[in-house]
């Protein structure tokens, strides 16, 4: 018997992305630059997060024509974003044949209370999380991959660092708990008990955990790997820099060799300017994308 869309096949796809960089692209040309630089996948968008942030208004899934253009341009996996809770956008992306769906806070949420039931899809999902409870709720809904939310489109790594550190500290705490403390902890975190038990027994999430939201330089990518990320998403950081090809190659190498500091020093030489960043403190509550998701 041949089985498609099993948990193993969906989570396994994310396992194959480990140690790699997933890059946001908005057309075929950018997708080819990303692939040639060694990206493990691309995220097909109409606008990178920095431009979504600048444009304001309601941000929705990309035009299917953009997604197909990217899918036709490269042989590596193609991901695309749907709005939180937008079941139909996700079904459309699945019908298009995208390889992974990001139910993303970067787009304007379609549902202010519920996320998509991701179990009933054949295509796997990645979701953002700021802490262990949020990560385990998303996995409980069927997410096959987790990423930090960070603060997308800012070029500022501080929120991704906070989210990764928070999650790793919570994982260590749960791992060291006595089994009789787990149910109360599940209640406190708002996490499904069975998944929390998995974390207690294995000392890690049951799925891959990437960094995202604010990665702008090779050193940022390496920092997230040092903090325990399985891999890195780069949104605006590449195509908002002065030299996207150089940035793309350098970030791929920095992610693979994140603990080889001489190599990192070499990689960082003469890269040209990184994307212009935003101080998180200057963002109002309503401009903080990470608050989206429940």
């Amino acid at each position, binding site marked *: *018997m*041949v*089985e*498609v*869309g*099993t948990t*193993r*096949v969906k989570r*396994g*796809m994310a*396992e*194959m*992305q*480990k*140690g*790699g960089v997933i890059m946001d692209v908005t057309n075929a040309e950018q997708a080819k630059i990303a*692939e040639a*630089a*060694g*990206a*493990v*996948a691309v995220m097909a968008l109409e606008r990178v997060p920095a431009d979504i942030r600048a444009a304001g208004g309601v941000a929705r899934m990309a035009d299917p024509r953009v997604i197909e253009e990217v899918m036709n341009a490269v*042989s*590596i*996996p193609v991901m695309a974003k749907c709005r939180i809770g937008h079941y139909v956008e996700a079904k459309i992306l*699945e019908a298009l*044949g*995208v*390889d*992974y769906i990001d139910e993303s806070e970067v787009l304007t949420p379609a549902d202010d209370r519920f996320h998509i039931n991701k179990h009933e899809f*054949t*295509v*796997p999902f990645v979701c953002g999380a700021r802490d262990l409870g949020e990560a385990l709720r998303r996995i409980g809904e069927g997410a096959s991959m987790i990423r930090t939310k960070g603060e997308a489109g800012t070029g500022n790594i501080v929120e991704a660092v906070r989210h990764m550190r928070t999650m790793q500290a919570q994982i260590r705490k749960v791992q060291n708990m006595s089994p009789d403390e787990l149910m109360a902890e599940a209640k406190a975190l708002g996490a499904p008990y069975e998944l929390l038990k998995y974390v207690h027994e294995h000392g890690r999430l049951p799925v891959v955990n990437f960094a995202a939201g604010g990665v702008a330089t090779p050193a940022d990518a390496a920092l997230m790997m040092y903090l325990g990320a399985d891999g890195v998403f780069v949104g605006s950081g590449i195509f908002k820099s002065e030299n996207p090809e150089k940035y793309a190659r350098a970030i*791929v*190498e920095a992610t*693979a*060799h994140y603990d*080889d500091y001489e190599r990192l020093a070499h990689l960082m030489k003469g890269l040209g300017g990184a994307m212009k960043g935003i101080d998180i403190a200057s963002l109002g509550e309503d401009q903080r994308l990470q608050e989206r998701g429940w």
Partner: protein
Amino acid sequence: MNIGVLALQGAVAEHIRMLEKAGARAIPVKRAEEIPALDGLVIPGGESTTIGRLMKKYGIDEEVREFSAQGKPIFGTCAGLIVLAKRIAGQDETYLGLMDITVERNAFGRQRESFETDLPVAGVADRFRAVFIRAPYIREVGENVEVLSKFQDRIVAARQGHLLATAFHPELTDDERVHAYFLQMVNESA
């Protein structure tokens, strides 16, 4: 017995877990200079374009070809199979170019077509859980290549002397028999 798992990108920890389960000492390797001391090398699943580019960038490809020339065993899964191949359909670029096979990338479709099924694998198992993720298959083999497994008439596992390749991911199961088979190849080569 020291087995290295090439750790530039991909499912490294899964292979290490399986090799240890099968009784070997396994370590991740990222640098060319770590390779000569190994008795066997695993090239994991991941993205072949990424792994291939990073191998070339730092001369790891040359070191692995030298390793192979000494008859030391290499096992590639999925992307690892593509990296080992002499010919890749639809592209001129190859990576290690060691195994006399022609591979077709993403040959079963996109991720929504990815699947798992039970297959016989010659010399390994009558029934093995084979997990295919955007997997390649082997379209043609040279005369010194032994076909170990087929799915719907397509070659999905093969061996050429000290080289072993599967289109599927034994490292995503709890069944270590393919890894044990590889360790036996390493033992015989020593």
